[in-house]
């Protein structure tokens, strides 16, 4: 039976067909739908959101140690968080197949960088598989489990946004029976003390040699001989682009791009006149080819930055000028916080107190955009609290108006350690936890703070204030961000504290079904409106400005933040 699946859905399907029993992830675009699909369609697999990616990989490794096939999925930058276990897991005995899916994001559609995670495979000395379509995504997942168990190694499967989020036809297969879990002890292979780890390192090096042999004979690496004046080595989405741009060329398609098949590469290079390596982001394959002493074209012409496309590949190889008319200067539609979003109220209060606002990863990062202009830093998950602490320490007393904002999901991901550090080292920054009871940016996933798991059951109830106190913070206050005057007052009080202060800005995400909002749009009293534009400064998409007056659209949720800041009491309605 054939079905149209996205790359992420195909990975989920592949996991089910491979008899995977355990899957874990922290949500992150473009990887999120892998676990969502598993949870929705394959309840025979235990699937869980974990607080962060390090936990995701480690619990999956635990399931593997107990003999089950396990999958951990994350976005590319999530692998940085999981890098600690990733670098040592290959030293250990992998019992049940263990696959790490890394969803990279060339062109940064929804990320803070565009790192090429194929480099991690080489760094950790584990196989790298790169599917080029949904059909391959499913097929490769199943193959990755066989490979993982045959060589006792974690296997990395790397998609990109175009593979994860594109759809194509997939032939569905029959599921394998999952292996039974059982307890075994392998201390020499599982206790990574120096004496054991030292003995395990040569095992990895030997395994890489055997993996290279495998790579040469694998059906995932194959040569298509056509016109031999041009030969292209490519992988993943870049293969599809190159195949379309140069339909007559010869190809060496790599599904297993680390370790590369040295014999196959030599054979292919000998058959073709001009050898090109077409790949997105880093010269990952190209460097391996050059190490074999083979000359080729690659990043001398193919762009290093951004995603490729058939026309970009064609123009780069042919050295053509970028064609097409000059782009039209059209008004853009940047993503924005939603009408009724609680973040606007607290960001406004911080701005009015003239705070420097260290940001973090979440919807509130969009508060960076004009007209709000509220976010001053955004680096990676959990960094904001630490930026604020470092800055306020060196700035010293009296100069600090340093705040950090962090969402609840991000706080549980990697904010708690930063907050503990702030308390431990007697920091003076104001930390605002934007507790909207969900992981909003990736489409509203639950997290430990909501206590609801992927199967919909509620297991725990976290007392946020109590948690913050337990981390050593004495000044903690919860506020309603829609009460803008109160929020402003509390921020002022917090900034006057001698020690660290935490404000919990507590209001559910405007998109949550549980959200109780008035839902009745507010109205502008045109007689009172002076056209001062103060209400426009919060950047609400429900407020327009026409004929020197503000107008509120029907998309307004009646949250009342604009009403609260209007200096002329011109906005009314039931709040």
């Amino acid at each position, binding site marked *: 039976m054939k079905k149209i699946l996205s790359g992420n859905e195909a990975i989920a399907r592949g996991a089910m067909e491979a008899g995977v029993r355990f899957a874990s992830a922290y949500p992150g675009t473009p990887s999120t739908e892998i676990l969502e699909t598993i949870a929705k369609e394959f309840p025979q697999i235990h699937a869980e959101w974990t607080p962060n990616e390090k936990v995701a990989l480690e619990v999956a490794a635990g399931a593997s140690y107990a003999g089950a096939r396990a999958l951990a999925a994350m976005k590319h930058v999530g692998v940085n968080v999981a890098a600690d276990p990733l670098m040592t897991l290959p030293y250990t005995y992998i019992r049940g197949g263990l696959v790490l899916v890394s969803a990279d994001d060339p062109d940064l559609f*929804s990320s803070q960088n565009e790192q090429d995670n194929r480099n991690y495979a080489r760094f950790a000395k584990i196989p790298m598989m790169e599917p080029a379509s949904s059909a391959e995504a499913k097929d490769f997942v199943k193959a990755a489990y066989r490979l993982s168990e045959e060589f006792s190694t974690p296997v990395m499967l790397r998609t990109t946004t175009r593979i994860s989020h594109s759809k*194509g*036809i997939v032939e569905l297969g029959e599921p394998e029976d999952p292996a039974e879990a059982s307890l075994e002890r392998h201390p020499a292979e599982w206790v990574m003390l120096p004496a054991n780890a030292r003995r395990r390192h040569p095992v990895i090096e030997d395994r890489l040699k055997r993996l290279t042999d495998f790579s040469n004979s694998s059906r995932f690496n194959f040569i298509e001989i056509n016109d031999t004046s041009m030969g292209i080595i490519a992988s993943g989405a870049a293969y599809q682009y190159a195949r*379309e741009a140069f339909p007559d060329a010869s190809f060496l398609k790599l599904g297993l791009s680390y370790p590369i098949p040295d014999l196959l590469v030599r054979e292919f290079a000998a058959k073709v006149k001009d050898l090109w390596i077409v790949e997105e982001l880093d010269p990952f394959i190209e460097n391996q080819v050059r190490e074999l002493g083979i000359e080729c074209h690659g990043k001398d012409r193919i762009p290093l930055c951004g995603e490729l496309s058939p*026309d970009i590949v064609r123009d780069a190889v042919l050295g053509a000028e970028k064609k097409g008319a000059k782009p039209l200067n*059209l008004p853009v539609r940047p993503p*924005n916080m*939603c009408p009724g979003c609680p973040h606007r109220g607290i960001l406004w209060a911080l701005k009015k107190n003239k705070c420097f606002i260290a940001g973090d990863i979440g919807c509130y990062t969009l508060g960076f955009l004009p007209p709000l202009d509220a976010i001053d830093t955004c680096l990676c998950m959990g960094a904001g609290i630490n930026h604020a602490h470092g800055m306020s320490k060196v700035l010293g007393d009296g100069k600090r108006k340093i705040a950090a904002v962090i969402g609840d999901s991000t706080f549980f991901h990697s904010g708690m350690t930063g907050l503990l550090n702030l308390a431990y080292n007697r920091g003076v920054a104001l930390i605002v936890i934007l507790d909207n009871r969900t992981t909003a940016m990736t489409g509203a996933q639950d997290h430990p703070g909501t206590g609801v798991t992927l199967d919909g059951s509620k297991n725990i109830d976290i007392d946020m204030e109590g948690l913050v106190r337990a981390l050593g913070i004495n000044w903690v206050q919860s506020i309603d961000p829609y009460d803008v005057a109160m929020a402003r007052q509390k921020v002022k009080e917090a900034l006057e504290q001698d020690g660290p202060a935490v404000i919990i800005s507590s209001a559910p995400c405007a998109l949550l079904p549980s959200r109780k909002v008035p839902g009745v749009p507010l109205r502008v009293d045109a007689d009172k409106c002076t056209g001062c534009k103060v209400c426009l400064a919060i950047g609400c*998409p429900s407020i327009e400005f026409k004929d020197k007056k503000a107008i509120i659209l029907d998309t307004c949720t009646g949250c009342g933040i604009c009403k609260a800041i209007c200096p002329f009491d011109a906005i009314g309605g039931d709040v």
Partner: protein
Amino acid sequence: MNVIMAGVGGQGIILASDILTEVAMRHGYDVKKSEIHGMAQRGGSVMSHVRFSKQVFSPIIPRGECDILLSFEELETARYLEFLKPGAWIVINRYRLPPPTVSIGKEEYPDVEGIVREKTQRFMFVEADNIALSLGNRRVLNSVLLGVLSTLLEPDVATWEECIAVKLPEKVRDINIQAFRKGRETK
């Protein structure tokens, strides 16, 4: 065949392109579609590429190779003109959603018809929102536009209607089929 659907978040573009993809598969084609989710979903621009033929490689349509641009919002039409092949068709829903800079009076909403006319004469405006509203549910505008699209593609109406039925929950199935038929009547 290369089709681009363009508009803004919340207009039902992803669903419409899913339906077209299913129709193409049922006609025996290889088919791929590509779109960007994530940050674009909240009032941002949304674009979906659907490609079908005997064999499809790239999931994204190269510039200059799009056969039909189905646009759900006037301004969004203008963003994708460079994708069009000479002789391509453009179907434009007569609906304007001002982007933020326009709604706060910093920029003007552009003259889309003028921009399009400079590029091609092969375009048509459709009152999809009004047709949907006349049926009692504005959200079925995507089925109206699919109806228009179907007149430019394969004539197998039964397959189209089956695919719409498969992809939609029962309670809105009939109204979407009606909307699709209304779209087909639009000239």
